[in-house]
């Protein structure tokens, strides 16, 4: 299966020394992308999801141009963007 191309925000990778901004991940759902990110950089799951369980309120994950949930399915080679929402003051 062609891996998904996952793009991570700088604000996130800054929290994990050595983390890449663009990652190729074989996954069928967004939840599996999160699993793979956690395996590579332990602790990253907690930054992106809460224990609802859900993607954090001010984190947006877009798949093929649409805002996704944890159970959103990925097509082979999907474009996945992890973005920080407008927030703060």
């Amino acid at each position, binding site marked *: 299966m062609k891996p998904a191309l996952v793009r991570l925000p700088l604000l996130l990778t800054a929290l994990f020394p050595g983390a890449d901004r663009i990652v190729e991940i074989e996954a069928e759902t967004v939840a599996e992308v999160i699993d793979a990110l956690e395996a590579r950089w332990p602790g990253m799951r*907690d930054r992106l999801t809460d224990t609802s369980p859900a993607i954090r309120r001010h984190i947006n994950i877009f798949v093929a141009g649409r805002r996704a949930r944890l159970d959103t399915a990925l097509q082979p080679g999907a474009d996945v963007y992890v973005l920080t929402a407008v927030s703060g003051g």
Partner: protein
Amino acid sequence: MDVRVLVGSKKGAFILESDSARRDWRVQGPFCEHWPLTHVGADPSTQTIYAAGGNAWFGPAVWKSSDFGASWSHSSAGLAFPQGETPVQCAWVVHAAHGRLYVGVEPAGLFVSDDGGASFREIEGLRRPPTRPQWQPGGAGLILHSIVSDPADPRRLWVGISAVGVFYTEDGGETWSPRNTGTRCDFLPEGERYPEFGQCVHNIAMAPGHSNRLYQQNHCGMYRSDDGGLSWNSIEAGLPSSFGFPVAAHPRDAETLFFLPLNGADQGRYPPEGRAAVWRSRDGGAHWADRRAGLPQNGAYFGVMRQAMATDALDPAGVYFGASNGSVYGSRDEGESWTCLARDLPAISSIETLTT
């Protein structure tokens, strides 16, 4: 000997460094990737600095530095309630004692780390008080913001929760009981102002060498307990207001303590008349004197939050506070005179000290 003033702010941690003279200060920071931090504290036994916060994007975490701020890591491993419950929003306060690190969170919960902040587990006993379903949040949320431990007995802990009150355990967290007798709720109807729980505690501190002597700043009054919180007595007579957020104990003298009264809960919450003062008692709260030399006496409309005043371990003791306008003030003579150590930092939420 080096003294560090640890500053928690809305945009990260800062560290103010000086030597034992405490004349010249160097400001370092911001640290922790500009995360909003509610508390930065230290474990003096390991010289490790910890910072508690919650980021709007990335959730709660505890930051850690073992090299006085040169490098930081963060963790929230285990800092979570069971799946499906309201998630932890923010790590609110850190407290190191007896080789452990305690963390209070929002919504009200207590966690402990036995591996220096790498991972955490919940102290589940705090879920079990029968009044728990009736706990109501204060203005800043349902937060566990104050933790006090007995240096002589690791099983004894007191926590402050807004707006629930003080709770106490003497079995390491298995069972908890309220410790609010004598503290009032001016915001409740007449005749109902001394409930078992529901008090808006703002901050608690333990007197040195007397583990049953506690001081408390409440939304409604200043208090002292001589029996580990079983009963509280008002010590606000002589102060300009019954409202404020922090209380700080002297490092060696159990009778000396410091409050920073603000003008009132519904009057702006700034120093009375816009004139800043720290109020000191030398006799356990029976008498008070304002100490304001060097503090702004005109147009001081800042707030000082619940964790934002602390003493250091030197002799004479240093006293420090941080304000919502980003200023840090310090005294190296137990509050007699003050100087501004830093200004124009982000809004300050906490001040602690670390002596090396």
